[in-house]
């Protein structure tokens, strides 16, 4: 407000000093001119009173000249040069100047230095008087006297001295001093008043506020242009009118008339401010919002002589202030309603300003807040502090919005969730200097969100099928379980009618009916069969109910279904299993009993029990196993009960039981503990293995006998083959001895004297019969030995211990071929050895097998064509099958089966051998879990196959 009153721009144009102000100086000029005229006249009339008066006039003129020295000097010069009595006038002028000028100089110095604060009118005038008196005495009279003496050619000094001593103008000097002092004071005060009034006028004219001045009676005396504009009254019209006519004010709100401030000032004599909300009604009736104040005007004596009232138009300011206040109020209301806080953080100083509900959010009053970021941090939950600072740093460094959700701890310990959002505010250089934003308490929302989220998730993940429809049965929600079952997306179902779930073909329950019933009765419950995504029926236990709002009005329908397919299946399976068990129990060929563990009381037995034991069912159920003495050895039962009760089921034990007939039954026994009415019972299953045991025993004996027989036989074969050879050694040995003896005898006879006579007679014996007999003896012995050797090998082949291992047949076969190299060369045959698969067997035995076969192949080659023997092999179905193929004489199909028989040889005389080779081969191969067979075509050749277990692992190596 004040700035408008004191604005230098507004005051400047009127404050410019004026060079010439006629109303001030004209008075002095007139007075000075008159004085000059009077003194001119008085010169012409010497020693008249006028001359004296003229000097007074110079006193006044001196002031005028001093104040306006340029115009005064001009006037003095004019007077000096133009008057007829130039010299006397000049002398008078100088005489007057002689006291006026020093007095002026001294007063000015003294005033400026000492008299500034003195009461203006009295001290200034008194000082002037004294000064003029002194200067007049000191300079005026001596100077005048001196000049007079010079002019009259009189001695100067005596005149000067008489001037000092006589003081001829003392009375004059006193009068001049008094008059000039009075004139000075009057001049000064008038001058000051005029100046001040002039300034005030200018101020009033130029001021931006309306100013009305009244006299003591409250009538308008002054009115500046602004006031004219505001009131609508011109100065000329308003002057002299009562203030209330010109300055009509009312309360802006109520419209009631308000006391005029000027009147209050006049009545109370104190400065008053204007009441707020004051409206000024202008002359044309328009209203303006004004602000005003009034002050009393007093004269020098302190008497109340009027009042001044200053006012200005605040309509716009008032309106904007009102609007601002309204805005602020609305903002406050909004912040309050939104429970929102406002904050402003100065980054450099760290000062934080809070507004709105910020402090309330933190559970404190505004005064308690320390105004620093540290204080804010101290109230944040420790776990969230770092994150908050990171977000702030990010806002500062990257300039993005500050957005943070965090917890605070209120002084009462309550933890609340807050959401603060802010933006950086930058200075001219773009550097963020502040961050300002808002804070909201989102605890409730968060809680509700969490709750909602939890509910949603629960609903989503629940195993049950949940469907919500409107009252018409149009689907509004399905959970995941529904979608999963139907293999559809929620979008495919929402908005469709529930009949998309399909109607139940078994019960005929239609979805439409279910919806209708639920709507009518509030609830429907039943079993529904749907078809799942895979087309399989899904049995659902469903509840459909009406969802009602708080007032009990139905708003939706909800169906909750549980998949009971498995339960149904399980029930069915259980029923079936019970039936099965029951049937199994009744018809089992095994004896099954259920007895009470503690005393052996028989609870149930099956048909087999009655058949085997000889007791009827009734007899059994009326008694206990102990009483019936079913157990041959009671200790067995005790042990069994202990075991099964300790959780060790008995499986496959052998116990002896006693039948009704007293006969012993050996049972293969299994038992478990079962609980009937919380009482441990033993479920026993007994397989009557009496006959089997007996058979087993017999078989065992038989086997033992057989083994003994076998061993005996082996021994017999062994011994026989061994012992039978001893005589052969003699037979052959001595036959040989005999041959030698016959030879000796022959030679002796040849040398005898009568050899010619004897020789012809003994010649048939010596040369033919005896050698022939010996030859037969030796051949037979040799043949016998061959057979025995074969038998021995056969018996050995059955006894040799096998060491089964993976065999690299390529290596083995090479060895076999190498060993027979001589024979092969001799026969001229070609042996082709192909790559062979590995097998499992005993290296020595397998070697023997293939040696025999190769030997056979070489032996039975056709002498008419070059021999060709191929050894090959392949894998098939876990076996390694080897082939030895020759192009020999072959075997008649009729004999093929016989070649593996003992002592069979195709052409006994054609080839040497004991005839046991293939028999041994067959026996060995069979011992090795393999098989051997042959294919042949007489005259083309034979193929012998040997199959042995394959060795997979070796092949991989």
């Amino acid at each position, binding site marked *: 407000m004040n700035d408008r009153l004191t604005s230098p721009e507004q005051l400047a144009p009127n404050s410019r000093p004026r060079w010439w102000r006629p109303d001030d100086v004209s008075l002095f000029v007139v007075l000075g001119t008159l004085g000059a005229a009077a003194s001119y006249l008085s010169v012409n009339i010497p020693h008249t009173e006028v001359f004296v008066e003229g000097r007074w006039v110079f006193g006044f003129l001196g002031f005028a000249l001093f104040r306006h020295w340029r115009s005064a000097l001009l006037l003095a010069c004019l007077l000096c040069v133009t008057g007829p009595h130039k010299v006397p006038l000049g002398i008078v002028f100088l005489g007057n100047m002689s006291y006026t000028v020093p007095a002026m100089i001294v007063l000015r110095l003294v005033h400026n230095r000492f008299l500034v604060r003195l009461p203006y009118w009295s001290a200034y005038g008194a000082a002037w008087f004294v000064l003029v008196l002194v200067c007049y005495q000191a300079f005026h009279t001596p100077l005048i006297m001196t000049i007079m003496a010079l002019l009259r050619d009189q001695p100067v000094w005596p005149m000067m001295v008489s001037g000092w001593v006589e003081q001829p103008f003392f009375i004059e000097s006193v009068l001049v001093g008094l008059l000039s002092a009075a004139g000075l004071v009057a001049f000064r005060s008038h001058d000051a008043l005029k100046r001040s009034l002039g300034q005030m006028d200018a101020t009033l004219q130029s001021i931006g506020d309306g100013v009305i001045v009244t006299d003591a009676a409250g009538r308008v005396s002054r009115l500046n242009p602004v006031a004219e504009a505001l009131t609508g009254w011109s100065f000329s019209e308003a002057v002299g009118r009562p203030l209330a006519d010109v300055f009509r004010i009312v309360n802006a709100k109520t419209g009631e008339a308000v006391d005029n401030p000027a009147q209050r000032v006049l009545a109370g004599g104190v400065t008053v401010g204007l009441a707020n909300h004051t409206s000024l009604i202008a002359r044309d009736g328009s209203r303006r919002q004004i602000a005003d104040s009034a002050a009393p005007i007093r004269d020098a004596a302190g008497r109340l002589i009027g009042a001044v009232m200053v006012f200005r138009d605040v309509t716009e300011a008032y309106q904007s202030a009102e609007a601002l206040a309204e805005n602020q109020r609305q903002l406050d209301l909004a912040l309050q309603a939104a429970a929102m806080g406002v904050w402003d953080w100065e980054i450099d100083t760290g000062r934080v300003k809070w507004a709105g509900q910020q402090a309330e959010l933190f559970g404190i009053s505004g005064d308690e807040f320390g105004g620093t970021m540290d204080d804010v941090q101290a109230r944040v939950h420790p776990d969230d502090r770092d994150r908050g600072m990171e977000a702030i740093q990010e806002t500062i460094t990257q300039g993005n919005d500050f957005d943070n959700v965090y917890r605070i701890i209120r002084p009462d310990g309550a933890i609340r969730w807050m959401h603060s959002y802010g933006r950086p505010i930058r200075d001219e250089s773009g550097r963020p200097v502040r961050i300002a934003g808002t804070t909201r308490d989102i605890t409730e929302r968060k809680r509700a969100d969490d709750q909602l989220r939890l509910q949603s998730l629960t609903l989503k993940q629940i195993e049950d099928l949940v469907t919500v429809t409107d009252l018409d049965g149009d689907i509004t929600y399905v959970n995941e379980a529904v979608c999963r079952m139907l293999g559809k997306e929620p979008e495919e179902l929402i908005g469709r009618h529930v009949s998309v779930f399909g109607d139940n073909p078994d019960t005929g329950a239609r979805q439409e009916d279910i919806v209708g019933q639920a709507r009518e009765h509030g609830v429907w419950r039943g079993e529904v069969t749907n078809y799942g995504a895979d087309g399989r029926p899904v049995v659902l236990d469903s509840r459909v109910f009406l969802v009602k709002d708080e007032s009990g009005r139905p708003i939706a329908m909800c169906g909750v279904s549980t998949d009971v397919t498995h339960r149904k299946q399980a029930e069915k399976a259980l029923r079936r299993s019970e039936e099965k068990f029951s049937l199994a129990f009744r018809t089992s060929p095994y004896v099954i009993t259920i007895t009470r563990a503690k005393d052996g009381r028989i609870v149930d037995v099956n048909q087999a029990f009655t058949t085997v034991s000889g007791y009827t069912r009734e007899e059994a159920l009326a008694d206990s196993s102990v009483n019936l003495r079913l157990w041959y050895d009671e200790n067995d039962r005790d042990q069994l009960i202990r075991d099964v009760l300790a959780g060790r089921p008995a499986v496959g034990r052998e116990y002896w039981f006693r039948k009704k007939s007293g006969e012993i039954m050996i049972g293969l026994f299994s038992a478990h503990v079962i609980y009937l009415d919380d009482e441990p019972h033993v479920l026993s299953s007994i397989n009557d293995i009496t006959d089997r045991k007996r058979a087993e025993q017999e078989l065992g004996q038989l086997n033992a006998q057989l083994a003994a027989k076998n061993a005996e036989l082996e021994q017999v074969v062994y011994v026989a083959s*061994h*012992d039978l*050879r*001893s*005589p*052969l*050694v*003699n037979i*052959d*040995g*001595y*036959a*040989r*001895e005999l041959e030698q003896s016959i030879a000796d005898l022959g030679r002796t006879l040849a040398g005898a004297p009568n050899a010619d006579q004897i020789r012809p007679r003994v010649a048939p014996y010596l040369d033919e019969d005896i050698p022939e007999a010996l030859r037969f003896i*030796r051949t037979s*012995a*040799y043949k016998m*030995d061959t057979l025995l050797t074969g038998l*021995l090998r056969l018996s*050995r082949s059955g006894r040799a211990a096998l060491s089964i291992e993976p065999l690299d047949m390529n290596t083995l076969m090479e060895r076999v071929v190498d060993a027979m190299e001589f024979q092969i060369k001799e026969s001229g045959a070609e042996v082709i050895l192909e790559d062979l698969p590995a097998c499992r067997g005993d290296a020595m035995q397998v070697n023997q097998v293939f040696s025999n076969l190769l030997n056979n192949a070489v032996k039975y080659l056709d002498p008419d064509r070059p021999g060709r023997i191929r050894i090959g092999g392949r894998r098939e179905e876990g076996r390694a099958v080897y082939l030895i193929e020759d192009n020999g004489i072959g075997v008649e199909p009729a004999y093929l089966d016989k070649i593996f028989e003992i002592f069979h040889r195709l052409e006994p005389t054609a080839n040497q051998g004991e005839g046991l080779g293939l028999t041994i081969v067959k026996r060995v191969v069979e011992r090795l879990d393999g098989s051997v067979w042959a294919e042949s075509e007489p005259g083309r050749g034979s193929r012998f196959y040997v199959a042995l277990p394959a060795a997979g692992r070796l092949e991989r190596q």
Partner: protein
Amino acid sequence: MKGESHMHKDVVILVAEDDEGHAGLIKRNLARAGIVNHLMVFKDGQDILDFLYRRGDGPHRQSGAAYVLLLDIRMPKVDGLEVLERVKEDPELCKLPVIMITTTDDPREVERCHALGCSNYIAKPIDYDNFVHAIRHLGLFLNVVQVPKINGEQTQ
């Protein structure tokens, strides 16, 4: 052939063989091979053990004499294997070279004899020629081995 014999004449050849024919053949053929040492035949295992352990009524072995034992495996009463075992068990008799002469060529039997400590093993072939050959080999063998004396110094 006689000139081939180098075996010390004092070494006595003991033949334990139940078959007299075999013994005869051995004897004849050793003689043909030039072995002229004294040769004693025992008809079974018991007899030879009696001789070696100086028991019974029959002849007893002499201390300080050198012997070579030709032993058949299959014999009545005590068989050759047992004789071999008993001989090799005895701290003194174990020095006695034992040559098994038997009709069997069962490898396990051969192995067993060697395990028990026989010096050599000869199978009796039915083929007379082979037999002769084998015995002659034996003769050669006997000619070159050093036969230790039993209960005495070693012979040269």
